[in-house]
């Protein structure tokens, strides 16, 4: 029915509690020394920071997949482009502290480049790069989506061309001559806006910004899917042609959510790069994009919260398993994927919904 509030009161309080808890982690890390009962290891904080970026990407993917039924197997490219856009600034911010002590990033010195190529111009400005974070994935998605949706490419056909797109970008970025550091990508960042990138305070700030971005995006996405536009999107998913016969042009609706999703994904990438310390073309490999889909599916697509849970669960398990049983973890993870599909068709969020229903 028409929904008047974004979330139920219980959901609001749940989200608020989670945000507070998550926000507390880096502060506990900062203010309690190692060994104190309340100390949160910085390893933990950086891990959760990374997961939040993944969660944002999964949330973005869910907007197109879960609601508009557009399965993208190429969201890695938006994630990576956002990361590269921010990475350009971070590379410039290294200044003369690189191994070649040059104004240019090391890989350019190595390629005998004397000046920045055109697409690097003005990237020493933080705000310009932040604009690129939004613009580059956004414009790519808009142009790609415009032609694809106009040609009425749907279903697997669309999925496969998104895969082709990310694959092509990966190969392009692998080339040294493309100007993005080849397969080593960008790494060894030193500072951001003048602050040391490895300083605890900087890390905590990045973490909190990511948390804010994630929470903000969740609210934004929720607002969108609860609007009439959200219902149109679901109609696109279920019967696009019927929608046309009642006077909607699906092109613009799809393009809107597709572009929005790409931008959110780009922002996720931009937040990811300073926290993880590297961006390289393998983020654009088809398998990485498929993994994003997996996060959303495990969490429960079409639920917004589900993909966030999914990203945390899958990556959390992966982090734990790869350390705890390095030889067997793929069995465990694979089995979990199979069991989720078999027994939790709506993903983890579906489990919660079922549980709630049973309570009622």
């Amino acid at each position, binding site marked *: 029915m028409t929904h008047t509030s974004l979330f139920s009161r219980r959901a609001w309080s749940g989200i608020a509690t989670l945000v507070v808890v998550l926000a507390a982690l880096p502060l506990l890390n900062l203010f309690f020394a190692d060994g104190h009962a309340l100390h949160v*290891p*910085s*390893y933990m904080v*950086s*891990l959760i920071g*990374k997961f939040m970026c993944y969660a944002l990407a999964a949330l973005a993917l869910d907007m197109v997949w879960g609601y508009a039924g557009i399965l993208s197997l190429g969201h890695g490219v938006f994630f990576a482009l956002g990361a590269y856009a921010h990475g350009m600034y971070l590379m410039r911010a290294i200044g003369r502290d690189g*191994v*070649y002590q040059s104004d240019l990033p*090391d890989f350019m*010195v*190595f390629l*005998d480049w004397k000046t920045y190529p055109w697409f690097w111009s003005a990237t020493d400005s933080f705000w310009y790069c932040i604009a690129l974070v939004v613009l580059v994935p956004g414009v790519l998605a808009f142009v790609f989506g415009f032609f694809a949706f106009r040609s009425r490419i749907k279903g697997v056909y669309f999925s496969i061309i998104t895969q082709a797109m990310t694959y092509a970008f990966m*190969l392009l970025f*692998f*080339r*040294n001559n493309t100007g993005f550091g*080849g*397969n*080593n*990508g960008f*790494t*060894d*960042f030193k500072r951001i806006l003048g602050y040391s990138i*490895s300083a605890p305070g900087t890390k905590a700030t990045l973490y909190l910004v990511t948390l804010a971005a994630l929470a903000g995006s969740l609210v934004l996405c929720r607002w969108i899917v609860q609007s009439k536009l959200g219902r149109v999107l679901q109609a696109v998913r279920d019967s696009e042609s019927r929608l046309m016969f009642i006077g909607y042009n699906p092109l613009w609706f799809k393009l809107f959510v597709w572009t929005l999703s790409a931008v959110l994904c780009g922002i996720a990438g931009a937040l990811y790069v300073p926290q*993880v*310390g*590297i961006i*390289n073309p*393998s*983020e654009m490999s088809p398998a990485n994009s498929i993994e994003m889909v997996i996060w959303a599916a495990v969490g429960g697509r079409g639920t917004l919260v589900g993909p966030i849970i999914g990203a945390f669960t899958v990556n959390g398990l*992966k*982090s734990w398993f*790869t*350390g705890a049983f*390095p*030889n067997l*973890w*793929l069995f465990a993870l694979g089995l979990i994927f199979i069991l989720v599909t078999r027994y939790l068709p709506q993903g983890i969020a579906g489990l919660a919904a079922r549980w709630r229903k049973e309570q009622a």
Partner: protein
Amino acid sequence: ADTIKVGILHSLSGTMAISETSLKDVALMTIDEINAKGGVLGKKLEAVVVDPASNWPLFAEKARGLIAQDKVSVVFGCWTSVSRKSVLPVFKELNSLLFYPVQYEGEELEKNVFYTGAAPNQQAIPAVQYLMSKEGGGAKRFVLLGTDYVYPRTTNKILRAYLKSKGVKDSDIDEVYTPFGHSDYQTIVANIKKFSAGGKTAVISTINGDSNVPFYKELGNAGLKATDVPVVAFSVGEEELRGVDTKPLLGHLAAWNYFESVKNPVNTEFIKKWKAYAVAKKLPNANTVVTNDPMEATYVGIHMWAQAVEKAKSTDTDKVIAAMAGQTFKAPSGFTLTMDPTNHHLHKPVFIGEIRPDGQFSVVWKTPGPVRANPWSPYIPGNEGKQKL
């Protein structure tokens, strides 16, 4: 604690598992060996194995976990350059130690890293020198064939500069790249054949592991023999040849700092230990295991680190770094290797081997003694005077 923890950071799954898995096993064997002799500083070593799954950001995460959570004193690991680059900032930030056992493109020197594999001058340049020599066939034209990523690109840049300095014209050099996982070498082999019509040609291959088999198969089937167009590879060793039918490869070359076929008591012992270990631990295909260069480099690295800890009487990073300088170790390659006091690279001998039908290499050329590494290739402008930390 009564143990000293050491981290092992090699991919056990994903694309790099092919190469890295055996390094993990060698590391474990070496640690057992040291423990059997009483450990280090009277304590046993305890290995912490993790799987970064050929995923570069995961490498960084795992490195941080090993250092910060597991509190390891040192990490042995990485294979690809990008994995090393991704963990570097972590080691610097947390001031810990990484031993990197694989040949690489150079252009790097870090206080927190010890490089036990070859720098370009310890592998690539001697190989080309050999090819140009009369013994090596007196090659006049060169195909630089590689997988499209930084290691081949960099190596080839250095080689091109080197060849130019030897008077080879640009038109006599063909640089060709293929994507990762490329498996169709028909066109490239045909082009090599065409190119070789113009004079004695050699192929310098920096093709990454997985593409090598299809490349060599194509080469063999197209009738290009090593006597016509020799191929020298920098990433093909005994381990890679285990998965290849070597009949058509006879006579093609590889350049390394160690071959399993090198005959000396240390190596015999090393091979014996490894084979016994493989059987004891029931490794897959335990009866056919082989040793190779990065395995030797791993072995050497762990021993040197243990020696340095004994010398420093501490596992403290800075003290160990100081103690590493000038460490020596009698290596399976038959030489006593020295850790350079200033550049964190080993002095290593260079061998060039031809592939034998049994998948081993027969050494056809070697340096008289260990060679000092030049991580900053002099063939790259601007590198002069950068050879020290």
